[in-house]
């Protein structure tokens, strides 16, 4: 070779590569080396594709998005869709009746998931989990036989989250939730839909997924365990801030007794714009709507890195101006007109000028517990130590929580859509508005929760019926700690008004 070679290599005849390539064994070597490499690259690309899959089912209509859209919770907390569907089959004995509907979930016609559950394809598998609507949408019937109407933004009166949780925990502990039972159930369910369970899914994906689901449920069960023996909350209620303590892994067994188990009603979530800056949550422990929303979103399984802010943002925006549904039954206008001045005199300064105008000296502010006199259990579950821990949530993000504060009473709520918000008081211990206008000693000590049949006369849901057909309601005992129906009574609270004034006031409140 000469120095020129460096500048004009092609002129020097076949290169070493060409010479080697002419040999027969070399061709085989290429096949043996290159093909498996290509195959591996293809596999890697496929797996990468699968693991980067992150596609929620999206809905153009905001109402559908609210009912079935994602908060991002499926990413971290989602159940593989088919496992979720199979659990009521294999663990039927842990349910009070057939399917999830027996836990008070609302199913709309033609839907395979209840209102309040979303679906997202994530890392190669369809997953489902709760969204906002599971606790903030429900149904109303005009009579026991009537078809239920779905109302969005109202408290999920019929949904029994305590039972749902218990079902999942019990099922996870039961050998019947192992792959041996669940995979055939999935197979059956898929066949019914005309789908087929693939081999990889049957023998690899689902057995592993089932094991993970069970392990995580049992881990959660371990954290909740100290509170499981406490009285059942019943439908429409949740022990919000002990769940928040679980997020921080506080050992609940070491909590002082008065902090344990303080369930309260799901609230309605209409008209958030005029609520901005007011003290939110039953005890008024936060004043920022967006922070309160992200806090609630932990309940839908989100974590700071996995929350779908765009999807939640849609709901958040919509709720700013969403009006509560109008009262659908006749209102006696003359009677309501007589109730208006009673309202102005007794209620307006704490609850707002009317159902849309939330102005008033004490609206959205906390009334000290000694003054309001209602059950203090929910208040006591929220502690200073929890509040400061909440300030660490979303650390590293510009929206880190900064507005949680320990309070010492309950906040005065605006009354928009009041008719759909029964039972009343924070702990849902008074079935109707009419009952709330009686002194505690004359309020029903025992009643039934979870019925969606409406009682226009007393403004609330029917509460004196233990069951309608298959639908069995929850016996609410006001003697249980946390369930007291005391407080919000006395002259200033209207409980000493003559009956005709109370009736007129109830009539007026129907216009809210």
């Amino acid at each position: 070779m000469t120095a020129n070679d460096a500048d004009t290599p092609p002129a020097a005849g076949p290169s070493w590569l060409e010479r080697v390539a002419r040999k027969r064994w070399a061709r085989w070597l290429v096949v043996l080396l290159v093909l498996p490499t290509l195959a591996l690259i293809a596999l890697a690309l496929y797996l990468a594709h699968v693991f980067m899959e992150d596609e929620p089912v999206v809905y153009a209509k905001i109402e559908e998005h609210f009912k079935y859209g994602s908060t991002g919770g499926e990413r971290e907390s989602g159940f593989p869709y088919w496992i979720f569907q199979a659990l009521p089959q294999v663990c039927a004995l842990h349910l009070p009746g057939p399917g999830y509907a027996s836990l008070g979930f609302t199913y709309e016609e033609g839907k395979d998931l209840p209102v309040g559950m979303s679906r997202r394809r994530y890392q190669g598998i369809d997953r489902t989990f709760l969204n906002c609507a599971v606790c903030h949408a429900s149904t109303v019937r005009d009579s026991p036989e009537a078809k239920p109407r779905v109302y969005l933004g109202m408290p999920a009166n019929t949904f029994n989250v305590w039972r749902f949780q218990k079902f999942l925990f019990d099922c996870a502990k039961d050998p019947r939730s192992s792959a041996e039972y669940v995979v055939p159930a999935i197979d059956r369910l898929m066949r019914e839909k005309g789908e087929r369970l693939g081999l990889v899914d049957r023998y690899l994906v689902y057995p592993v997924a089932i094991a993970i689901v069970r392990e995580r449920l049992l881990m959660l069960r371990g954290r909740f365990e100290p509170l499981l023996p406490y009285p059942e909350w019943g439908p429409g209620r949740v022990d919000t801030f002990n769940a928040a303590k679980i997020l921080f892994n506080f050992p609940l067994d070491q909590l002082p007794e008065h902090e344990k188990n303080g369930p309260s009603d799901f609230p309605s979530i209409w008209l958030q714009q005029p609520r901005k800056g007011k003290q939110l949550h039953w005890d008024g422990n936060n004043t920022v709507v967006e922070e309160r929303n992200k806090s609630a979103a932990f309940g839908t399984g989100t974590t700071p890195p996995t929350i779908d802010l765009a999807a939640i943002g849609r709901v958040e925006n919509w709720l700013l101006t969403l009006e509560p549904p109008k009262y659908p039954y006749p209102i006696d206008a003359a009677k309501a007109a007589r109730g208006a001045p009673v309202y102005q005199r007794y209620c307006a300064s704490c609850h707002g000028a009317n159902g849309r105008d939330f102005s008033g000296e004490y609206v959205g502010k906390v009334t000290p517990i000694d003054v309001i006199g209602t059950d203090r259990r929910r208040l006591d579950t929220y502690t200073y130590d929890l509040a400061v821990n909440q300030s660490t949530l979303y650390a590293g993000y510009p929206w880190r929580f900064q507005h949680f504060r320990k309070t010492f009473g309950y906040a005065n709520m605006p009354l928009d859509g009041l008719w759909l918000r029964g039972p009343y008081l924070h702990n849902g211990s008074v079935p109707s508005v009419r009952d709330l206008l009686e002194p505690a000693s004359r309020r029903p000590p025992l009643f039934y929760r979870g019925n969606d049949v409406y009682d226009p006369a007393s403004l609330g849901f029917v509460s004196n019926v233990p069951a309608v057909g298959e639908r069995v309601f929850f016996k609410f005992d006001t003697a249980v700690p946390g369930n007291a129906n005391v407080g919000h009574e006395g002259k200033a609270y209207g409980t000493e008004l003559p009956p005709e004034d109370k009736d007129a006031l109830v009539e007026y409140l129907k216009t809210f």
Partner: protein
Amino acid sequence: MDAERTPGSWKRKILVAVVVLVVVGVAGGVFTWYKFFREEPQPEWITKDPDMRFKYGSIGAERESGIPYWIFYVLPRMFPDKLPKPGGLAALGVSWEQGQELPIGFTQKVVGFPRVANNCASCHAASYRTSLTENPVFVGAGPGHTLYLEGIFRFLVDCAKDPRFNADNIMREIKLVTNLSWIDRQIYRFLLIPITKKRLLERETQFAWVYRKDLPDWGRGRDDAMNLTKYFLLKLPMDNSTGPTDMLPIWNLKKYDREGTTMNWAGDSHDSYSVIIDSALGVIGAAPKNKTEFLDEVKWLQQYLREKAPPKFPFPINDQLAETGKGIFDANCAGCHASDKTGKRMPLAAVGTDPERIWTWTKDNAVAANKAVRGFGIERKGLVEESLVGYNAPFLDGLWLRAPYLHNGSVPTVRDLLTPPDQRPKLFWRGYNLYDPVNLGFVSQGEEAKYVGTRYDTTQRATGNQGHAFGTELSPADKDALIEYLKTL
């Protein structure tokens, strides 16, 4: 031939190799500097506001003693079993303002990566509540009477000792709270987690004495300050001494300007400049990297604390009664607590309080510690190179918030202190922040105090509540008047 082109070609190759090496080296160096050493200033809401700077500002401890932020973040969630009760860090009695990401005295600073360390305020911020239906008020520079410092030391070491403290577990927890980049995940997994574990475990031997079962717990609001100095700065072998004392308020330091005053409970240090240096070195845990920067911070702290006023009593005061009380104070107390003797050493025999704190420190220790600090190139008047004889007669500014009383915090309230020693409470709970304006001190009995606080038994070593029987013979009316006056200090 090959040989013909060798000289020029080799030169070029070497040049290329050198350039490549330099580029790779520089890139690696920049990367290392950026990811491990670059310092970002703290945000302005801390640096521009003196009170915030005192509470949350870095004193340079992050470099040496800082814990990687996300490890620090997940530890209380991962190891609640190693905390005294539910509540995360709050269970350790830290002064934690609502809405703040970290408790007072905990600093966050980026040195390559975000780290958490401490500053003076971790022990020198007090909280009080005026009623059960009020949130706490925090007083910067006040005595950290709720802080369970020993609990914090133990918690970190105990976490590191647990086999669950490993990269898999910690990374899983971190993934639930933040979204680290791939490179940061590798840095955490392969460097920060193992190094943090190792560094925390190294502390175990130095902290051996806080694990001793035969010595009483410090409990809330106290630390064994001189032994910390002996075992950490001087690296002396563990002896049998123990002398936990109350965290001190460090407001209004200009009162120590007067000639002849000494500082700390036993008057073992000459002046506030020295005390701040020594305490800050303890928090940093090493020689400061940049001496000028360190001393500038010390000087800022000194200036801030010289002028920081003690807090006013937050309840009504009966002025007339207080006026009567002033006469009683002048007759009975001023001789030591408002005179030339104040802030100076007083022989133990004259007061008769628990002696063990004095036995934790010797002249030799002082000489050695002064030498060590001089070794860092820092000049200060330093520790008093004499044997200790007793405790200082303390200044009483902000007395109401200095509870519990005596150097070892063995007497819960001023009224208890005005009671003959054998009638003072023998068992009470420390660290609850509900204030008792009648007796001047914190509520120290009852369910809440027991749940929040730590048990204080005056019959253990170094916990005696004897001595300082002054004023115990006064009539009840005189005591009431005296207490009313003391509220005004």
